[in-house]
């Protein structure tokens, strides 16, 4: 479980994370939604100790992320940020292999090699494994980054807009893959999502943020409602039931 208490972060006098307290249960998918600038990425970065908060705590299974030794934490929790620019020329396999660094410290064992091959397989990168990252499309690169994070094989996985640049088939494949990781391996997956329908379809819980605060937290049924979504995004949003799931319609 991730327990967040009174988390605050401001740039100058502008609060971007404004007293967030949250409990994210272990094993399952929790999606964070909300308009641009709501503070979702900032929250995720603080949870993974990439950024320092001005106040408050993040506890992951008894480990306070700011106090835990960083290499220990790297075996429990991994993060992929929204934008990732790698200027060095690495192959997909190199990149994915570095996901094993917290475990192997650079000496890859046969077990590590197995993890690497599986991660490459899961994300359908087999044909691209020996290509350089700068020779891939945006979506292919995004998949390579996610393969690296999955290869890290942590109990907690934080992904900031993982569906960025992915086509429909790969977006669906990604969500199915994450769903399986949660169901079969008991992973705790926290996603920042823009597509609320993907969030609705695949998540166990949805956290809605607005202006630095958590305004709603509950099961998809409780969040994907016209009045709730309309208030979060400041526009009229209709919701329909499709095949037992709730789908938001906001195209008109």
């Amino acid at each position: 479980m991730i327990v967040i208490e009174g988390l605050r972060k401001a740039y100058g006098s502008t609060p971007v994370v404004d007293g967030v307290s949250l409990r994210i249960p272990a094993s399952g998918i929790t999606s964070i939604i909300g308009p641009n600038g709501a503070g979702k990425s900032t929250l995720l970065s603080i949870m993974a100790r990439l950024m320092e908060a001005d106040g408050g705590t993040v506890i992951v299974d008894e480990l306070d992320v700011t106090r835990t030794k960083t290499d220990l934490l790297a075996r429990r929790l991994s993060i992929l940020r929204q934008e990732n620019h790698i200027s060095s020329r690495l192959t997909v396999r190199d990149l994915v292999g570095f996901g094993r660094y917290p475990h192997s410290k650079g000496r890859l064992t046969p077990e590590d090699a197995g993890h690497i091959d599986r991660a490459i397989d899961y994300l359908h990168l087999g044909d691209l494994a020996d290509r350089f990252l700068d020779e891939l499309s945006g979506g292919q690169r995004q998949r390579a980054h996610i393969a690296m994070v999955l290869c890290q094989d942590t109990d907690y996985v934080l992904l900031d807009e993982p569906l960025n640049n992915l086509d429909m088939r790969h977006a669906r494949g990604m969500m199915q893959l994450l769903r399986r990781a949660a169901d079969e391996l008991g992973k705790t997956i926290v996603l920042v999502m823009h597509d609320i329908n993907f969030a609705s379809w695949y998540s166990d819980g949805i956290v809605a943020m607005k202006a630095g605060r958590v305004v709603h937290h509950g099961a998809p049924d409780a969040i994907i409602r016209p009045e709730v979504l309309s208030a979060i995004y400041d526009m009229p949003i209709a919701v329909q039931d499709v095949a037992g799931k709730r789908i938001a319609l906001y195209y008109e």
Partner: protein
Amino acid sequence: MKLTLAALATLAVAVLSLFVGVSDVTPASILNDDRAAQVFLASRLPRTLALVLAGTSMAVAGLVMQMIVRNRFVEPSTAGTTESAGLGLLIVTIFAPGWPLMAKMAVAAVFALAGTALFLRILRMVPLRDVLLVPLVGIMLGGIIGAVTTFFAYRFELLGSLNAWTMGDFSGVLRGRYELLWIGGVLAVLAYLAADRLTVAGMGRDFTVNLGMNYRAAVVLGLVIVALVSAVVLVSVGAIPFLGLIVPNIVSMAIGDNMRRSVPWVAITGAAFVLVCDIIGRTLRYPYEIPISMVVGVVGAAMFLMLLLRSRDHARA
């Protein structure tokens, strides 16, 4: 396999370099003629070793710098490092001319470290969108430091020494005057041992932290390697521009930047590049010599230009 072939080819060039020169030294004459043997041991062998060590360590230092700055176009001479080392060397020459070479080198290294840290700080304060602006800022910083150095060299009548430091030249290499370069060789090995950490640092702070590594420590390690190599080379044979830029870029195009794989290639290619440039410099106007910094400068500038044009085409950062 390919690496072994490249190493053997470089070794062959090194052997060739042993037998190029004004005095008549051949494999046979070393064995039969005392004078030839003496020239060989006192001058030829040290020169070739110095070339190999300087070429290897400067090329690896360039690679390390490119990883920690995360920019293809930086190397000690485009980041203020070389000029800072020169300033340090000048200051210690003015105030403590009697110090042993090792101590002077240490002072130069401290200055190189400070200058490079200043460069990194400037980059952090002014985030630059264009990859090409980063080396331009470094060249400007180096220009300012170099101007200060020249001013004091002029006032203290040390322009001659300054000239010798800024123009890399192997013609004066003799036994007893190049051995500091072995430190450069050791540092290249250190870079290889830390290859994974430096490669991860090259992916940026967030990736590094996510993988549970101390980003700052990796950057500091890289900086220390770069500063020490620059100082050692400057003090022993003088600055060799472009080398740290050309070699890692060529290797990167061919096999990428995973340093576990690329450091050995960069090391071997760096040695070969310097050996070949030195042989050209020694034979082009035989029996006169053209200083290696000039040969490397001309060849390097042309190759650098090609890299720039290529990077335009590929628009990769």
